[in-house]
């Protein structure tokens, strides 16, 4: 392992970022097992139940343990708990059947034995378990980030590299194109693209991805411009290397480090943008457990059930923070200027 990488692994910010990201990845991979219920199963008798409602440490006979009493919403009197009934919380229980990444099962990390439900983070406006929905939301947000950043990389890199290498009219043309894209600040470009493509999760991903294109294009253009007239490139050309070979083997590898740093930061931005689109009703559609969308629903009953808006937001902050930490750490470790 080279020195920068070792520096990265020892970096405290990087460790925090890796740990956070690892936890989210675990959550995404084992979502149906960790989540006690399906993210779609609703129960209209138990809407807006606060977190941990009905949980007690003493059983019906006074014995210690985790016990849950049924909680439900009375139309006039609000949340009610039937304390006289108590059901034990069990680990590794059989519950709702799930199918995930081609694997079927019905085993859950925890669950309640009996007709009560344990809502770790409460329920939303349709009585769906918020904890389960947030877990199932991880792969959605991660895949939005990956697809969007992938689009940005795949379109932005050639858009920056080729015209800069060729120069002349091509460069001018590409630059004006990038200028046009950059004239729409921040999330506005994504919003405009959604307006053209129509709302939806996939269109949201594409829109956020295209919004990242000019940023990558500008980054790669800078690297190519600074290197293309250097002696070693001239030497490669004198040796008879083709343009493609010079660009791909001699110039672009130098852009890998800034691209890597940018990609980590861009993941953070893409996840924020996608959540913003979901919040505005322009991204994922209900009943998809997308965090921005969940937050938007929580907004309507903020005073009655603040947990519905709070926890999806925390989930976003954590994931975005992980990528920001990694990006900062990557820059510290790999960028020779910031020593």
């Amino acid at each position: 392992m080279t020195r920068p990488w070792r520096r990265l692994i020892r970096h405290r910010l990087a460790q925090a970022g890796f740990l956070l990201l690892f936890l989210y990845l675990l959550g995404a991979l084992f979502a149906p097992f960790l989540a006690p219920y399906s993210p779609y199963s609703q129960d209209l008798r138990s809407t807006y139940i606060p977190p941990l409602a009905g949980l007690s440490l003493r059983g019906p006979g006074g014995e210690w343990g985790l016990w849950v009493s049924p909680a439900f919403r009375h139309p006039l009197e609000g949340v009610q708990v039937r304390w006289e009934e108590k059901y034990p919380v069990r680990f590794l229980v059989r519950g709702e059947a799930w199918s995930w990444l081609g694997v079927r099962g019905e085993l859950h990390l925890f669950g309640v034995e009996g007709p009560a439900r344990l809502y770790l983070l409460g329920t939303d406006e349709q009585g769906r378990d918020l904890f389960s929905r947030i877990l199932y939301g991880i792969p959605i947000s991660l895949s939005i980030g990956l697809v969007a950043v992938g689009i940005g990389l795949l379109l932005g890199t050639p858009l920056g590299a080729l015209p800069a290498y060729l120069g002349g009219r091509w460069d001018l043309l590409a630059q004006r194109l990038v200028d046009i894209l950059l004239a729409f600040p921040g999330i506005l470009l994504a919003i405009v693209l959604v307006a053209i493509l129509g709302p939806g999760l996939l269109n949201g991903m594409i829109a956020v991805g295209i919004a990242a294109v000019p940023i990558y294009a500008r980054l790669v253009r800078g690297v190519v411009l600074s290197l293309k007239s250097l002696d070693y490139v001239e030497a490669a050309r004198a040796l008879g290397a083709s343009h493609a070979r010079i660009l791909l083997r001699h110039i672009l590898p130098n852009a890998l480090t800034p691209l890597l740093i940018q990609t980590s930061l861009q993941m953070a931005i893409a996840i924020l943008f996608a959540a913003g689109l979901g919040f505005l009703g322009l991204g994922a559609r209900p009943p998809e457990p997308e965090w921005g969308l969940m937050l938007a629903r929580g907004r309507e009953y903020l005073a009655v059930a603040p947990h519905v808006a709070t926890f999806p937001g925390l989930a976003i902050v954590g994931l975005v923070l992980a990528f920001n930490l990694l990006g900062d750490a990557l820059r510290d470790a790999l960028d020779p200027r910031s020593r």
Partner: protein
Amino acid sequence: MAVLTGIPLGVLAALRPGSGLDLSVMVLALLGVSMPVFWFGLLAILIFSVGLGWFPVAGKGTLAHLILPAITLGINATALLARMTRGTLLEVLSQDYIRTARAKGLAERVVIFKHALRNALIPVVTVVGLEFGTLLSGAVITETIFAWPGLGQLLVGSILARDYPVVQGAVLLVAITFVLINLLVDLLYATIDPRVRYD
């Protein structure tokens, strides 16, 4: 607001690198850039409007209606500016001319404000310009949270209603404003940095 709090925070953090103040400012700033605007807005409503009752929940009217949306909108920019100012100021403070300025016996205040900060602010001004754009587009979300009848709400409403002429108009207005602000920033360079000339 972002400029008034972000830059001083960055300066304070840069003056004592590694101190508790530096660390807490940087942690807060990192959280600030990682937070979705709409979530912060909702929390602000929850705490200051629903909980404490200091400000109205939403809508347009008095100056009090403006405070929470303004803070919400500015929070990301504040965090970003604090990070940026700290970074560039630290870089500038390690330059030779700063040592020269100290060596000739200038007061620390003069060194920091006249010699270091002025040079450190050049990249910061660029970011302020860019952040203006982010603020313009962030207003779209902030207006939705606080039910502020502005350009942003009009834009989202017309996208959902597929009223394309209104969408085009609103987007064009924001884009033109953004481009003009960037032009202003370019002109501002020449005032801050005498080396920059536009002939």
